[in-house]
């Protein structure tokens, strides 16, 4: 049997660099968001929630897109490389957490600004549906069966979610809408944010994206090792079974003699 080495390493220079950059930008967001930036004319200090809320929401939706794209890649690629499936799964795991945080920070911000924790506006409702859909997606990944089966099922679920989410969004939009327009992205040029606020928000988006990248890279490696463990255990069980039946036949044949 070939010699096996066990290195307790998950990190690589790349992930270390990404992690370090994420740490620095996160520190910037906390200091900038809480102390450096001024109060907003309309929102007062509640605007400070935005520096965390907007990047979290961005990452949550990014995770959704990454999961969908990776799932499509798995389905379409001829080799059905498990790497795509693991990236999809890792991204969904991280996405669920960010989605939940988005809802929490959003509803706290809403309590200050709208006066209620929850409003039936399309973005909020769609995010809630996305969270539930993701939880379902992860449940499907946990159904068991072969790796191939898991990959195929979850890829289809992820792509069905791509059909579902726009329909939910559109129907809630049609149902009712009272959300304020996205203030930075809207094309009316009405950006009320001053330099330090915009910079903090931008650094936040970059920092959270780096954190997301780090998390997905690492989780994807964890998933790869879990899959490898499952395979070796399966191999061992099969080998044991084979040995057993071999021994039995040896005993049986000796008895016959």
């Amino acid at each position: 049997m070939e010699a096996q080495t066990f290195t307790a390493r998950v990190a690589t220079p790349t992930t270390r660099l990404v992690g370090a950059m994420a740490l620095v930008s996160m520190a910037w967001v906390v200091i900038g968001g809480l102390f450096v930036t001024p109060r907003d004319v309309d929102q007062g200090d509640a605007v400070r929630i935005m520096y965390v809320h907007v990047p979290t929401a961005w990452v949550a939706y990014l995770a959704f897109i990454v999961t969908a794209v990776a799932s499509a890649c798995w389905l379409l690629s001829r080799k059905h490389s498990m790497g795509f499936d693991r990236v999809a799964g890792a991204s969904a795991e991280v996405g669920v957490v960010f989605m939940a945080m988005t809802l929490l920070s959003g509803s706290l911000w809403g309590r200050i600004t709208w006066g209620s924790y929850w409003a039936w506006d399309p973005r909020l409702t769609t995010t809630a549906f996305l969270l539930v859909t993701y939880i379902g997606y992860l449940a499907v990944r946990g159904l068991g069966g072969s790796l191939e089966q898991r990959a195929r099922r979850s890829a289809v679920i992820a792509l069905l979610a791509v059909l579902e989410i726009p329909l939910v969004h559109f129907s809630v939009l049609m149902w009712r809408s009272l959300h304020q327009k996205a203030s930075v992205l809207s094309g009316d040029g009405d950006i009320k944010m001053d330099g330090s606020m915009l910079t903090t928000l931008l650094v936040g988006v970059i920092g959270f994206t780096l954190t997301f990248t780090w998390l997905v890279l690492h989780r994807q490696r964890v998933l790869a090792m879990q899959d490898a463990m499952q395979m070796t255990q399966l191999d061992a069980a099969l080998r044991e079974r084979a040995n057993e039946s071999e021994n039995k036949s040896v005993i049986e044949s000796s008895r016959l003699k």
Partner: protein
Amino acid sequence: MDHLGFIAVVYGVTFAVITTLVVRTVVQGRDLASKVADKDKPWT
């Protein structure tokens, strides 16, 4: 600062959750990496 409680909860929960996720991933990764052979770790 007004609404200090709300802001503190948002920052506190967000960064606490991210930290937990990171720590959990690292611990899980180290644990598994000591059990899984290097040939199954394409990044090493």
